[in-house]
């Protein structure tokens, strides 16, 4: 089995190395062939692994591959943990990645950086697999940083655009804040356990929960709360939770396949995965769970609002991603880890689909992204339209679609958690996720109606050239549409209400909301019927109806509303002033402090006195010593004799 796992990880790495280092040698076709073969191999093997778990023939694997370093008694190992949670993530990552690889052939067709692009996305797949298959914090951190690096490289893929460079710098900096918390969280755990191995840390979880940390004298904190909140700060950076969400909308500067793969389906869900993986720790701190649920709920609702005022087709989908990540986080905070991870999976399929569909539209429109210049594209792009419609229905949670099962289970779980009052903020979260359903439906169908229906608002030249995308683009759309529609039917039972995840997720007895709900679950069919007795479905339908009314029936209304609610719209268009605050207070303040240290500390003291001073000294010494090498044998022999005499003298005097 170990060989299989290794192949899954290494195949994309090898492919990335080939496409990246020998890109010019193997050419465009060679580059995409080798990377698709690599990722395809990983995908097939991952499906095999998942099948093993489904059939019950496989058992979780947890073992080291090799010891990288031993220092001070700490074993830094490279190891694998493959259980049900990992297997699911592996399939999602490799499948979406494979689809995106194929799609890229069409999307990046004319780009001069073709091979580089393929190399990066294969490298990303490798990094993501390292992240999810790790059995220790060190390797997790490696994967965490590696996906961040590739994300940085890909946001700035078109490195001649200043906006792209600004966006990737922003993503990098914001993620540093999150990663700093993450690293501190790992350090707290390491401080109390002395190990980096998951299993060993989990075994000592009760001990950590009994310890306390003192920051300011008299102010003690539970160690587990501190560790979990810090870890979650890392997740907030990577999974773009308020207030560390600011980088994700800007990351849309990258090519669309990347938005689908990294900034929607996989990398941004790493935070969700990490918290689920750490469930044995989070379960021991209700304070941390409370923090998680409040942050998640705020993200889920307030980022959804932003989707309503944006006109860039990709940014609307990006805000929708933020909002959905908030949903997953809420589930984690309610201890419904299985529901959160389940939503992660369904979201990966339909959100990748929506992004790729948006990319298909952008291609057809010659890289026009403003929805105000679209409309009526349905008849020009039939396949894109239908797949996008299916994806949107899944996103809003239309009964029977995959998103319905995950979102409804999630909302039910939060509802129960709020009723039980198991964590503070669950009531607020329930309100946010419910209201979010309406908002989601509203902005999703605003996108569908503005893009595919109504008046054709593009210019004449663009209209003449409108045509459906080539098969390499439409086939991934169709292949992603299939799981987006149907996967909920046969996975909701075992994954959310069954015991499929086994020991990979841990829920405390008192928090087991999904366990309590499972008594009421009688198959997916009755689940759909049951949903009609709750408010979520009606809210979603109301959202669609409102979108229809505002954007198709009375397209003059939105403009009037804008004028009426101009104050609110301004807040939304400025994205709640987060960017303003970051740029004018945080960045400007840091720059001012930096300037003081730069001018005073660095230029004068360190550079002037220490660095240049010591460099001059070394340079001078070097020049002097060089002259000792005269080239004359007699001098050399003399030096030897002097050396010998010194040694003899030393021993005689000393001894």
């Amino acid at each position, binding site marked *: 089995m170990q060989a299989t796992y290794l192949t899954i990880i290494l195949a994309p790495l090898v492919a990335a190395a080939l496409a990246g280092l020998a890109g010019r040698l193997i050419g465009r076709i060679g580059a995409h062939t080798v990377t698709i073969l690599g990722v395809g191999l990983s995908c097939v093997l991952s499906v095999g692994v998942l099948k093993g778990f489904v059939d019950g023939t496989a058992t979780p694997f947890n073992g080291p591959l090799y010891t990288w370093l031993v220092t001070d008694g700490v074993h830094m190992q490279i190891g694998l943990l493959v259980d049900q949670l990992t297997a699911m993530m592996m399939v999602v990552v490799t499948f979406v990645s494979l689809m995106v690889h194929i799609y890229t052939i069409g999307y990046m067709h004319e780009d001069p950086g073709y091979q580089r692009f393929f190399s990066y996305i294969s490298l990303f797949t490798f990094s993501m697999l390292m992240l999810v298959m790790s059995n220790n914090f060190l390797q997790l951190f490696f994967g965490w940083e590696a996906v961040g690096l590739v994300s940085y490289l890909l946001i700035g893929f078109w490195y001649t655009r200043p906006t792209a460079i600004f966006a990737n710098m922003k993503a990098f900096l914001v993620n540093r804040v999150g990663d700093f918390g993450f690293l501190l969280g790992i350090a707290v755990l390491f401080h109390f356990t002395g190990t980096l191995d998951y299993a060993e840390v989990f075994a000592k979880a009760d001990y950590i929960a009994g310890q306390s940390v003192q920051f300011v004298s008299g102010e003690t904190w539970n160690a587990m709360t501190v560790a979990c909140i810090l870890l979650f700060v890392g997740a907030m950076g990577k999974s773009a939770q308020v207030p560390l969400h600011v980088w994700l909308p800007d990351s849309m500067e990258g090519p669309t396949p990347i938005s689908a793969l990294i900034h929607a389906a996989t990398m941004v869900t790493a935070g969700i995965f990490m918290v689920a993986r750490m469930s044995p720790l989070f379960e021991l701190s209700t304070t941390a769970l409370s923090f998680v649920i409040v942050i998640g709920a705020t993200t889920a609702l307030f980022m959804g609002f932003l989707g309503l005022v944006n006109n860039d087709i990709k940014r609307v989908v990006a805000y929708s991603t933020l909002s959905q990540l908030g949903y997953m986080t809420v589930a984690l905070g309610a201890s419904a880890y299985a529901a959160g991870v389940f939503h992660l999976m369904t979201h990966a399929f339909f959100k990748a689909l929506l992004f790729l569909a948006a990319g298909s539209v952008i291609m057809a429109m010659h890289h026009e992204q403003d929805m105000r210049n679209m409309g009526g594209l349905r008849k020009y792009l039939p396949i894109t339209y239908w797949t996008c419609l299916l994806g949107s229905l899944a996103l809003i949670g239309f009964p029977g679609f995959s998103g319905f099962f995950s979102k409804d289970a999630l909302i039910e779980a939060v509802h129960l958690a709020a009723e039980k009052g198991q964590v503070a903020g669950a009531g607020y979260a329930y309100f946010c996720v419910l209201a979010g359903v309406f908002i989601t439906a509203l902005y999703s169908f605003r996108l569908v109606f503005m893009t595919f229906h109504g008046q054709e608002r593009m210019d004449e030249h663009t209209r003449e050239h409108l045509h459906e995308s080539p098969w390499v683009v439409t086939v991934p759309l169709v292949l992603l549409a299939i799981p987006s529609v149907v996967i909920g039917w046969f996975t909701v039972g075992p994954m959310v209400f069954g015991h499929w995840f086994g020991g990979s997720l841990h829920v405390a007895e008192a928090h087991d909301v999904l366990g309590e709900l499972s008594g009421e679950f009688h198959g997916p069919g009755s689940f759909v019927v049951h949903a009609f007795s709750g408010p979520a479905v009606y809210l979603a339908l109301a959202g669609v109806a409102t979108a229809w009314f505002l954007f198709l029936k009375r397209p003059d209304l939105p403009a009037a509303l804008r004028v009426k609610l101009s104050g609110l719209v301004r807040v939304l268009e400025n994205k709640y002033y987060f960017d303003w605050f970051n740029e004018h207070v945080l960045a400007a303040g840091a720059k001012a402090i930096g300037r003081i240290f730069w001018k005073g500390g660095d230029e004068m003291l360190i550079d002037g006195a220490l660095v240049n001073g010591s460099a001059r000294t070394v340079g001078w010494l070097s020049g002097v010593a060089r002259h000792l090498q005269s080239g004359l044998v007699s001098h050399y022999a003399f030096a030897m004799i002097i050396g010998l005499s010194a*040694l003899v003298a030393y021993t005689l005097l000393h001894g």
Partner: protein
Amino acid sequence: MIPTSLADFAIAAPEVTLLGVACVVLLLDLFIGESRRGWTFLATLLGLALTAFVTLYCAPADRTVALGGLYVADAVATVIKFAAIATMAVVLLYSRDYLSARGLLQGEYLVLALFVLLGVMVMASASSLLSMYMGIEIMALSAYGLVAFDRENPIAAESAMKYFVLGAIASGTLLYGISILYGVTGSFDLNAVQAGLEREVFFGGRHIGLLFGLAFIIVGVAFKFGAVPFHMWVPDVYHGAPTSVTLMLGSVPKLASFALAWRVLAEGLGPLSHEWHDMLVVLSVLSMVIGNIVAISQTNLKRMLAYSTISHVGFILLGILTANAEGYTAALYYTLTYVIMAAASFGMILLLSRQGFEADRIEDFKGLAQRSPWFAWMMLMVMMSTAGVPPFVGFFAKLYVIQAVLNAGMVWLALVAVLASVVGAYYYLRIVKVMFFDAPAERAPALGGSPAFRMVLSANSLAVLGLGVVNGPLIALCQQVIPH
């Protein structure tokens, strides 16, 4: 004392094989025409493969001493011999194009190279001061010949002359030290010497002659290592010799130097470790500081690498001077990895050189990244590793040595080592800067090198990365062979 039967010679089977190979090559070369020199070369490589096989095959399970106490076979010897054979094979492979372009690919060259190797192997197995001295001389005399091999070249002849004169002084010093030691302990046999010294030390006697002899022996050892202040020959010889010879001198004999220090200082003179410890501290600090500082102002890459070697020798001595198993392990690891890095960096010069052009100035590497990105990256890895940047193997070599020094409680020495390597990073990174950020010289032609050369050089450079990422097995091997 005198070996009684032929079976006693089984312990020296690798050396006997190598000697046989050398003779066959010498004879073969006589009967082969000038145009078919490739066959001699091939025979040499095959002979090396055979010797490597015999070395591994005949390696005894336990430490064995035979031939009347002249010869020892143990795990350390096997490791050093095997590494030396492999390095020599790689060195010859790198040298081939260079030699044939200059008309130096003659049978004698190969035979001399084999004799250098023979000397190294004898030193690795010497368990008596006599056999050790014999090994040193076999190696040194062949090396003098090799440095002067390009007869037409006056610089080469001059540096060979210097090498010879200084080498003779060092040999004399060493021999004088050995004779004093013999006078005190009454034996050449290192085991007997050790036992004798233990008695001396036990009875509290600090024989003044003994310390005298020790100082002389240290001079001999330091000269072989090229430690400051017995290093003056190194830059001149490295610079003057044909690059293929520099490559050989920069790699294989370092293994012999370690063997010399291990057999004589650690094993034979172990009881005097307190005395030689202090001497080595001085030599090591001087080597690290002077080697790194002087390297900065060099414009010739071979000279720069010569000073770099001197600084690395400081690190190897750092491991040895702790006089405990951890330090010896680190020193052996350092030596093995250093040889790999040295082979790659000199190999790179050979790759860039061509007929009538030596490529040994730093500016010859300008813009290599544009001419050959692949080899520029390879050179980058080698330089990073030599500078001691993780995750390359050179980092771990330094780490283990410094760790050993720290565990021995010498914090200031560790600090000196770290500061010296910071200074050293400058000139390694300068090469990287020149390769990647400077424009190539006009009319810089494409890189030469046979496919085999390019492949082995790439593998050699990648090993620097690979052994760093997977550093466990090699250090485990070193721990295993050094007795605790």
